[in-house]
């Protein structure tokens, strides 16, 4: 049986699980059945996809007699789909394992269980689809299933609004993708991907299709300025679904962009890389700044997803530009960096969302300023969160460092561009990437430090209990994978080469054959990295330091009063807060992405009330772009509402007039 058939069988299994979930949601059997089944199916599909990536998928396209009558539903797995299938199913398997434990705390399982497997099936179907119709149908199915999951806790404050904004933006994105595919397919309707490849569109049409793909896929992936739904919707869903939406669904959107831009829309044009680079860098910066300012643990993670998607799009833009200017070795490096970062982000973002979910279960709190001191109460969760936070902050020897290092390596090759625009733009974007990486580190020091270190800021945080074993197992697995990919990056890079080969026609030199697990993606003289060496050094120096301290220093535990600015108040609220931590960055960069209003309410001398610091952040992009748009739509709706109150004859006249107008258009069409 071919990989396509196996994958479709897996999807059918997931859909059957969705039906089972609807039937047995209220029964105690439902949860283990759905999540256990999803775990097994995802693991099997992961194995199939990994096999297809390593040994090459079948060359044939599977055609089922569904969908459009003269095309059918086509399915094909090439190296690119196989790679994304690995990403999605790995996240799905981890999320299912996590949910086996975490799902116990779910209030309304009947709102989650039917849609969770359907969501997984939708993502898998998008990746194996090989014609525009099947692709868009699966895409919309995925969007709707995830919308249902966002609405799972509809009674909570703001969640209904999140669902509404998500629905509007998802429809908009699908519409843009529809236009992209229509442009590529042309007037004679070449809807199958093979036919699109065989006859690529003309240069002007290809440009429009590229732009539509960037808008459509970008709105799903969370590119600025189409990101507004993401920080609302991702945190609203149950945590394992948040992990999947951030870790896997945004990657499916990236897949859509890669598929259209690199595969279907014909020969590349270097000018098209400019918007990708700019939008990518802007998403990175604005995403990380928002993440730094926000006070909700899950929303911080969602904003950080926008940041990482920005980095991925910067790498994709570089790959596109290098590819268009026939520098395929550099294009292969940038593409490898992008794909590796996609994989890495799926790992650590899922891990962090699992941790956030565990914190939410243990304390019922997502606000950073109500948490604190959790490391003593939830040591394992804290450790795994620490690994995830270090990985996403691109600290060696973990995996985040490797991919971000490779992105910067690709930036360093930008003097080789022959076009001056790119020669200037690429280093500027590179500086943005570096700034983003630095701010991301600050962001995760805050996102880890405020909830896990210090003293509990609320009673709920004080009473927190460690997460259950299955959740911890899922987190441990992902944390281990983060470390493994970080220490053996060469193997991961080599595994990606078939996908890079498919898109660029070249791949980075084989890394596994390098001595001592070093990687040197361009040449050893330009830069090399050895994860094992760094890990060994960190382990050696840390154990040496701890040996020295424990051997030669006093072993007695000493407690002393902390310095309290001369105002001894033992309340934990006097600790450093999230807002205090981000204040310097807010002062320096805050005006870039926000309208910041800080108002200090100082009591007069002699008054006994407390002083207050009121902080209001409003999103500039929302104010400038979305508020006017919403106003226009509302006004138009009020005007069009009159159409609902016509007389019978006026209705008939409208129908008649529309018919006559259409006939006139038909008669005068050139």
């Amino acid at each position, binding site marked *: 049986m071919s990989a396509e058939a196996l994958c479709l069988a897996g999807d059918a299994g997931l859909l059957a699980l969705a039906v089972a979930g609807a039937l047995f949601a209220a029964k105690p059997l439902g949860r283990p059945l759905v999540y256990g089944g999803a775990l097994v199916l995802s693991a099997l599909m992961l194995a199939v996809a990994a096999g297809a990536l390593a040994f090459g998928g079948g060359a044939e396209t599977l055609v089922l007699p569904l969908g459009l009558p003269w095309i059918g539903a086509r399915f094909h797995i090439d190296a690119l789909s196989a790679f994304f299938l690995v990403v999605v199913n790995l996240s799905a398997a981890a999320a299912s394992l996590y949910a086996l434990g975490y799902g116990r705390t779910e209030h309304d399982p009947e709102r989650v269980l039917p849609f969770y497997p359907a969501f997984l099936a939708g993502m898998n179907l998008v990746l194996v689809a090989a014609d525009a119709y099947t692709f868009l149908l699966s895409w919309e199915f995925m969007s709707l299933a995830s919308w249902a999951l966002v609405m799972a806790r509809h009674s909570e404050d703001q969640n209904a609004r999140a669902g509404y904004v998500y629905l509007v933006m998802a429809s908009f994105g699908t519409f843009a993708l529809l236009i992209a595919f229509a442009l590529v397919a042309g007037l004679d309707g070449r809807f199958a991907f093979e036919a699109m490849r065989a006859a690529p569109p003309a240069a002007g049409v290809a440009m429009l299709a590229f732009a539509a793909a960037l808008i459509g896929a970008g709105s799903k992936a969370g590119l600025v300025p189409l990101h507004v739904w993401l920080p609302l919707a991702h945190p609203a869903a149950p945590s394992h679904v948040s992990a999947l939406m951030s870790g896997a669904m945004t990657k499916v959107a990236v897949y859509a962009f890669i598929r259209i831009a690199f595969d279907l829309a014909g020969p590349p044009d270097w000018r098209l890389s400019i918007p990708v680079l700019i939008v990518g860098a802007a998403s990175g910066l604005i995403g990380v700044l928002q993440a730094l300012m926000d006070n909700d643990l899950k929303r911080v993670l969602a904003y950080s997803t926008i940041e990482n998607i920005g980095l991925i799009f910067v790498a994709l833009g570089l790959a596109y530009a290098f590819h268009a200017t026939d520098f395929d070795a550099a294009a292969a490096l940038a593409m490898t960096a992008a794909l590796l970062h996609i994989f890495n982000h799926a790992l650590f973002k899922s891990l962090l969302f699992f941790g956030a979910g565990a914190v939410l279960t243990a304390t019922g709190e997502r606000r950073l300023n109500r948490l604190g001191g959790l490391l003593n109460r939830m040591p394992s969760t804290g450790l795994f969160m620490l690994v995830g936070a270090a990985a996403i902050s691109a600290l060696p020897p973990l995996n985040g460092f490797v991919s971000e290092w490779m992105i910067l390596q690709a930036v360093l090759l930008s003097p080789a561009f022959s076009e001056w625009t790119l020669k200037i733009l690429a280093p500027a974007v590179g500086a943005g990437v570096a700034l983003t990486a630095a701010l991301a580190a600050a962001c995760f020091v805050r996102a880890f430090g405020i909830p896990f270190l210090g003293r509990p800021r609320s009673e709920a945080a004080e009473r927190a209990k460690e997460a259950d074993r299955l959740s911890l197992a899922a987190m441990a697995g992902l944390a281990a994978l983060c470390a493994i990919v970080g220490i053996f990056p060469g193997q991961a890079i080599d595994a990606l080469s078939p996908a890079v080969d498919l898109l660029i026609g070249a791949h980075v030199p084989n890394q596994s054959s390098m001595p001592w697990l070093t990687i040197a993606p361009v040449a050893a003289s330009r830069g090399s990295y050895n994860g094992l060496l760094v890990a060994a050094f960190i382990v050696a120096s840390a154990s040496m330091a701890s040996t020295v301290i424990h051997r030669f220093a006093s072993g007695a535990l000493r407690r002393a009063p902390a310095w309290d600015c001369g105002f001894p108040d033992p309340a934990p609220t006097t600790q450093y807060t999230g807002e205090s931590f981000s204040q310097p960055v807010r002062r320096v960069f805050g005006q870039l992405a926000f309208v910041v209003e800080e108002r200090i309410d100082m009591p007069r001398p002699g008054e006994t009330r407390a002083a207050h610091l009121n902080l209001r952040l409003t999103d500039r992009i929302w104010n400038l772009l979305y508020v006017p748009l919403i106003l226009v739509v509302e006004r138009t709706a009020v005007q069009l*509402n*009159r159409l*609902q*109150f016509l*007389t*019978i*004859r006026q209705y*008939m*006249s409208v*129908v*008649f007039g529309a*018919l*006559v107008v259409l*006939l*006139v258009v*038909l*008669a005068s*069409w050139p």
Partner: protein
Amino acid sequence: MRGLAFDVAHLLAGGLVLMSFLLLYQTRLYALLNTFALQAVVLSLSVAWQAYVQGADHLYVTAVIAFAFKAIVIPIALHRIIIELGIDRDVENVVGVGPTMLAGLALVALSEVVMLRIAGGADVLAREDLAFALSVVLLGLLMMVVRRNAVSMVVGFMSLENGLILAGAGAKGMPLVVEVSVAFSVLVALVVIGVFLFRISERFESIDAEALDSFRERGR
């Protein structure tokens, strides 16, 4: 034979369009119904001629159905309704006869242009047939729009449907099933509309469709 077949078909289809124009300016209900019956007769002749030319026997059945229902049953039924309602008075036109006729002429021209463009390569007989059929449909719609009286709206709808049957007969190979179902759906529509008319006149003591609007919920 080829020339004769075309000429007669052209004549009959043109006659159908002519009847539609006649319908447009009938100001009395009885005259309107009689003209409608005449149109149905011309329609059944046209369909029968198509049956003869195409050698398609099932079209004879269509012709008979059209004659029986549209030329006899429906006009008689509507006559009865009018008598029972006691509304054998003038039809009031919303738009004057002159502008209505001009609009009708423009619609016929439009349908000819459209058909020349989209079916330019088709058989001349079929194309002309379709052009006339489209004209009849548009004229029927026009009648529904410009009349206020519910009975004449019903007649407009029926004449619109005549155009559909003409189109169906002109296209070779249209199975009988479709036509039978169309004919019966019109009959059902007649029954529904008849009941509806009685209800309207009972409630509002008028079958002026504008009267209905005063009972609707007003917009904001």
